[in-house]
């Protein structure tokens, strides 16, 4: 039977599909090692408190309890986090938010574990706490870190271009807007999970649901006081992550547990409630904008102030701030700009990476401002965007040079030519009784990779196996988005082999090579490029060896075919197995390092912001169109149609591409319409999936996705597609709702209650049409 090859650009059925739909794929949560103990933690009951005394004796006595551990049992620094190492594995001097882990318990079963956790007594001295980032910046605010020179300010940044705010007075039209964006919870299917044990060679082995196995190893080494070569982290398929597993979740606790378990493996797996309490969220943001343009609608000046609440620990908050600043002026040429941002510690839950990584917040701001201004200037919102959008070679309002492929204008034009846009007025006019309709657009981009300072490096490793098949050693975790099948697709194309001819080893710090995180729309871009390099080297080595073995053959006449090398001039063949058997192990393995291009243009921002990623070089772009219908009797919003035109470079696999766009849009719709993760005075009010409202299949319309395929330097011309889709539902739907209501709701999400209250407070808005 011939196995069809799957050329790049065509649908290749995902190699992970079958096992996943049959339920036999083994996620970190599915590991139950022989003789294991359950690990669980006692979490802080206070948002801010000094730990005076921890009494564990009653817990130790519970039958089935193997160990009760506190920060005193940790040999290392007891701090994790990048770049700021400020988060304890177990709280030592104090707790800084509800849910902070304080005591770790290992037990034979969950019953004993729960009982022991109940029996732990902790005496606290409750400290004044701060829950509002603006309050936290005041001089007399309670301090989370008494010693920090910046006090509660984690990081601030300023971007100034042209005459800054002064140019607002030269504008014909100026609009102002203050936006309040909510927390968002990742709500992945698989909550934080993993297992750990010390193997016979004394190596701490951790299998965890993580986007960052290599970075985890370094952080764990620091926090637990073990040399990095005594730690091995493996990352099986993740049951979702979206940024919420970009860094340590349970790994530190697992490592600590395994070091005190009497050589027994330990397992930890958070419940949904515990996950909601302890996991990171998308940063809630407050944005204050002024935006002005000329008589003809040419953008002239912008000011923007951003305040992000990063919660009790830094996590990736600084880098998220850098991304918000970079995306706060969107895809437009704005010559005079003043942008200022603050990322602030509070005693709330920790905010960190979440798909889009700050871009959704920045774009939610600027794209609503663009609609406000276009309205004020009396110009059609799409025409307004087209007038001001960047071409390659232009610089955005934030000062980012568009040095690489820039398809935003094509995306905008594709929407402009679409029947949904052309016929929009008819559709709006035909709203049934008690309904209001509106149409909104939004445009934006997504920076790829780590920015100008921190190198974005991927190291790929491939092997020709003795049986003539191939192995890919993946350095990047697959959270469900399909990196692994894509890597097989790419390697298959270069080596001209069928998907079945490959096995893929998932990230394992013991045998794979560090390749950075699965994040930042860079995973396929960077690892894929490294993999192409490794495969090309291997191919050359195979063909060269074939010349050695087939006397009289010449390199340029040889064809690498499925399972064999063919001499096109003579028709002679040699199997890959024969070639492999003539090679040493060293020869069969090929390694290639790839460094992604970084922005070179001069800095326009403080060095910390630059260090944390500003600016990017490669961007994906998109323009979205939303058609919404509002029920005047309930305020419920129905998204009736949705179109995304995306420039994420060339498409490797149309199916995975579309899945990313669709998934991003749905998660973005959740962000703007339903997902109201409420935290009040440090208390998580959304305890579970009954109160945190994620969209269901019936809440989402059919989504249309069109591609603008510019050529970029990722594998086969691609750019990252994992995040761009989530960036625009917030502003596109907000703009559509504003059009329907005749006024704008500035605080998200746009729940039915907010909409109805808005309608009822509007003297004309509450009336029905007839």
């Amino acid at each position, binding site marked *: 039977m011939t196995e069809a090859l799957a050329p790049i650009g065509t649908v290749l059925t995902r190699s992970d599909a079958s096992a996943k739909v049959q339920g036999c794929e083994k996620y970190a949560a599915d590991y139950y090692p022989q003789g294991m103990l359950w690990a669980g933690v006692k979490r802080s009951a206070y948002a801010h408190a000094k730990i005076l005394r921890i009494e564990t004796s009653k817990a130790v006595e519970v039958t089935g309890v193997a160990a009760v551990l506190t920060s005193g049992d940790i040999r290392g620094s007891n701090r994790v986090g990048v770049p700021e190492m400020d988060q304890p594995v177990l709280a030592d001097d104090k707790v800084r938010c509800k849910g902070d882990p304080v005591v770790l318990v290992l037990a034979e079963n969950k019953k004993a574990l729960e009982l022991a956790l109940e029996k732990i007594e902790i005496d606290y001295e409750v400290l004044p706490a701060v829950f509002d980032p603006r309050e936290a910046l005041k001089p007399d605010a309670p301090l989370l870190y008494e010693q920090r020179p910046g006090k509660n300010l984690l990081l601030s940044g300023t971007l100034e271009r042209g005459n800054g705010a002064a140019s607002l007075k030269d504008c014909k039209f100026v609009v102002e807007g203050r936006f309040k964006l909510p927390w968002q919870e990742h709500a992945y299917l698989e909550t934080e999970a993993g297992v750990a044990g010390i193997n016979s060679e004394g190596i701490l082995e951790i299998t965890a649901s993580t986007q960052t196995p290599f970075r985890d190893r370094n952080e764990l080494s620091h926090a637990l006081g073990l040399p990095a070569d005594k730690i091995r982290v493996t990352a099986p398929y993740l049951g979702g992550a979206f940024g919420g597993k970009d860094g340590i979740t349970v790994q530190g606790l697992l490592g600590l547990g395994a070091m005190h378990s009497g050589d027994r493996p330990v397992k930890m797996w958070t419940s949904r409630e515990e996950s909601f309490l302890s996991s990171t969220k998308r940063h809630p943001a407050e944005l204050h904008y002024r935006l002005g343009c000329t008589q003809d609608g040419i953008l002239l000046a912008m000011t923007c102030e951003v305040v992000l609440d990063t919660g009790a620990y830094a996590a990736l908050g600084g880098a998220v701030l850098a991304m918000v600043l970079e995306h706060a002026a969107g895809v437009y040429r704005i010559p005079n700009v003043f942008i200022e941002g603050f990322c602030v510690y509070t005693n709330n839950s920790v905010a960190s990476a979440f798909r889009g990584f700050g871009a959704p917040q920045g774009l939610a701001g600027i794209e609503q401002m663009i609609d406000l201004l276009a309205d004020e200037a009396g110009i059609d919102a799409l025409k307004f965007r087209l007038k001001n959008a960047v071409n390659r070679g232009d610089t955005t309002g934030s000062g980012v040079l568009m040095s690489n492929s820039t398809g935003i204008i094509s995306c905008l034009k594709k929407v402009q030519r679409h029947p949904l846009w052309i016929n929009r007025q008819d559709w709006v006019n035909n709203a*049934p*009784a*008690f309904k209001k309709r509106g149409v909104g657009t939004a445009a934006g981009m997504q920076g790829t990779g780590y920015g100008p300072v921190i190198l974005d490096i991927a190291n790929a490793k491939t092997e020709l196996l003795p049986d003539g098949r191939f192995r890919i050693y993946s350095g990047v975790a697959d959270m469900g988005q399909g990196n692994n099948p894509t890597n097989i697709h790419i390697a298959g194309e270069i080596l001209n082999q069928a998907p079945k001819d490959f096995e893929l080893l998932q990230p394992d710090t013991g045998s794979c090579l560090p390749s950075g995180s699965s994040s930042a729309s860079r995973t396929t871009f960077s690892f894929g490029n490294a993999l192409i390099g490794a495969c090309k080297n291997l191919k050359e080595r195979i063909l060269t060896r074939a010349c050695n073995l087939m006397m009289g053959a010449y390199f340029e006449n040889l064809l690498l075919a499925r399972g064999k090398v063919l001499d096109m001039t003579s028709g002679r063949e040699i199997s890959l197995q024969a070639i492999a058997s003539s090679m040493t192990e060293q020869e069969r393995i090929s390694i290639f390092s790839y460094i992604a291009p970084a922005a070179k243009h001069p800095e326009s921002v403080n060095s910390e912001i630059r260090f944390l990623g500003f600016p990017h070089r490669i961007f994906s772009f998109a323009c979205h169109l939303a058609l919404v219908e509002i029920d*005047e*009797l*309930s305020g*419920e919003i129905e998204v009736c149609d949705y179109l995304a035109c995306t420039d994420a470079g060339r498409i490797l696999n149309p199916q995975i591409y579309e899945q990313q766009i669709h998934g991003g849009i749905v998660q973005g719709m959740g962000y703007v319409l*339903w997902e109201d993760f*409420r935290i009040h005075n440090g208390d998580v*009010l*959304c305890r579970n999936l*009954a*109160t945190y*409202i994620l*969209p*269901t*299949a*019936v*809440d989402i319309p059919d989504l249309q996705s069109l591609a603008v395929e510019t050529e970029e330097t990722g594998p086969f011309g691609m750019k990252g597609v994992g995040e761009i889709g989530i960036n625009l539902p917030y502003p596109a739907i907000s703009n559509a709702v504003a059009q329907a209501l005749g006024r704008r709701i500035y605080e998200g999400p746009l*729940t*039915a*209650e907010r909409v*109805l*209250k808005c309608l*009822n407070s509007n003297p004309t808005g509450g009336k*029905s049409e007839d």
Partner: protein
Amino acid sequence: MKNVFLPNSIEEFRQIWSAVPDAVLMAGGTDLLVSLREGKTKVKNIISLERISELRHIDCSGGEILIGSLVTHQQILDAPIIAEALPVLRQAASLLGSPAVRHMGTIGGNICTASPAADLLPALYLLDARLELHTERTKRTVPITDFIIGPRQTSLSEGEFLYRIRVPIPVPNTRAYYFKVGQRKALAITIASMAALLRLDTDMTVLEGRFSWGSVGPTVLRFPETEKILQNQKLSEPLLKEIGEKSARLTEPISDIQASADYRRMLVSNFPLRLLQAEKYTGSNGKK
């Protein structure tokens, strides 16, 4: 350790229950298991009724539909007799939970949980449903309004269980509707709901109008005084608005994580207008 008993018949069930009188009954478990997981309910013994087929029947007799307490929401959706005689109950079941929940959850569980937000209750209040309650020795039939006495409180006495629900079939030419607002379209706890029954003359004069309100008070509410406003009046927007506004003033909603009391009142004010929408629709298209 919890014991779970699985009787195969009513007789077996009665025997087990008299042997373990402290046992909690479980139908589909979609309320009970959630509350056990949250530690809100502590139980030692559980009697699961799922194998008692006698409780799973839907019958029609003497102008009434008889629905066994173990009938699932999906059965309500699938039964032709319900679609024909009690379409409003079917409509309510179609808005409850998700396919998985509708296959597990039962009408008896929905009633006995006695949540003001339970989706079948407004329709059952509207239709004047009566409940057959059995103990080992006694049988009684009570109106649903007497059965549910507060949020999550029923008048079930010890050893008593819900055997069957009796729903009078409405007279011909009545139309009934159920409208619900939740935080999303499926798997949504009801923020507020309204079931309404209208009997109209050909010229849209209201011969009879009934309204019941969900999730805006300790139990499902009906306001007979307000209902009278409609009598012999022509169905109109101002009239329906009046009903809504008057009813809203009589409701006693709470604020919770789903919604504020204010919003619940606003919904009550507006709900009756949906009837206009629905009636117009029927008028112009002749379908539904």
